[in-house]
């Protein structure tokens, strides 16, 4: 059978089971739902304070949410290293800047891909902060508590994501994926 940790891919159901059980422990031991958004809130607050302290001082938002290194910050750092370990052990390293599907559709321009990733991520995080959660905080941790906010947000973001992706990549893109 071999060592499962060296395998490149696990069953999605096994991974889902693992994330579900992980959420039990997150609620139980840390009293925190698994969520990524909060770390960026704290990160932006810290950077804002470092670059423009007076601006941050006058900002009513930052005076409520103190910039800090939090459980959530370490969660994101952990996700990075967890994926690094997993891919290093199994040899499943990507080592790319422009993903293949993107290149087929939009060409090999590194600047083009980075621009889309930057603005896409900015839009995404603005939306996540507005709705108070992302794919993890709402999509998994919120929906599993049967929260109305999380179901509204998750169904809408999936729907909008599907429409946007179909517009970007067209019907042709389907055969390339």
């Amino acid at each position, binding site marked *: 059978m071999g060592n499962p940790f060296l395998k490149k891919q696990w069953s*999605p159901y096994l991974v889902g089971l693992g*994330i*579900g059980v992980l*959420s*039990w*422990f997150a*609620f139980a031991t840390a*009293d*925190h739902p*698994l969520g*990524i*958004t909060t770390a960026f*809130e704290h990160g*932006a*607050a810290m950077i804002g304070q470092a670059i423009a302290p007076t601006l941050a*001082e006058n900002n009513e*938002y930052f005076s409520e949410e103190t*910039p*800090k*290194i*939090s459980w959530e910050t370490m*969660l*994101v750092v*952990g*996700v990075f290293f*967890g*994926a*690094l370990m997993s*891919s290093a052990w*199994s040899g499943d390293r*990507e080592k*790319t*800047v422009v*993903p293949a*599907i993107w290149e087929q559709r939009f060409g090999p321009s590194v600047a083009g*891909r980075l*621009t889309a*990733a930057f603005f*896409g*991520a900015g839009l*995404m*995080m603005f*939306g996540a*902060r507005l*709705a*108070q959660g992302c*794919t*993890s905080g709402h999509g*998994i*941790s919120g929906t599993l508590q*049967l*929260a*109305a*906010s999380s179901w*509204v947000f998750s169904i*809408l973001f999936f729907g909008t*994501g*599907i429409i*946007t*992706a179909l517009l970007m990549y067209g019907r042709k893109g389907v055969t390339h994926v």
Partner: protein
Amino acid sequence: MATITEQPPETKAKASPPVNSQPEAAPGKTLVLGAVFGLIFGFLLQKGGVAKFHVLIGQLMLVDFTVLKVMLSAVVVGALGIHFMHRAGLVELHIKPTRYASNIIGGLLFGVGFALSAYCPGTGAAALGQGNYDAIAMMIGMIGGSYLFAEASGWIGRHIDPIGDRGKLTLHDVIPVNRTGLVVAFAAVLVIVLVAIETLGGR
């Protein structure tokens, strides 16, 4: 201890709430725990393949259902576990408030941004870990988006959040039946959806 007597006048001089010059840090144990949870989460995301560009875009193009399979099975397991742990008094719930305008506008913006970047916030950190270097631009964009939101949050809090504010609304409030029965039925529906996805040939 001796400096305590000097503090009152200083805090009075600063009328605005104090913004520390040093970033605060949570206790060490909390931070280590966060890192351990993150390590396992990132490991699982990578092993599931859901940090990969073609899998994420494949999901949005409705040709690869790996992302939904992972998410829905996590929700089934999580919902049952958290419900019974909550009943036993072992955990507190953390329900995010339902504010229709904020949830809906947030969802629309998130969906467009998700399709553009292909990685979502969590899978972006995992994608960077497995060597998708375009996720660096994404991390910077996310900090930028978060900063812009913070700048706009006062206005949003006054004008957008109050629209359709229903507080911590859950399915239990909408369908007032036995809580355990509802959670079990909810999990059963998601399992049926998973079986349907599997039999209809989603990868």
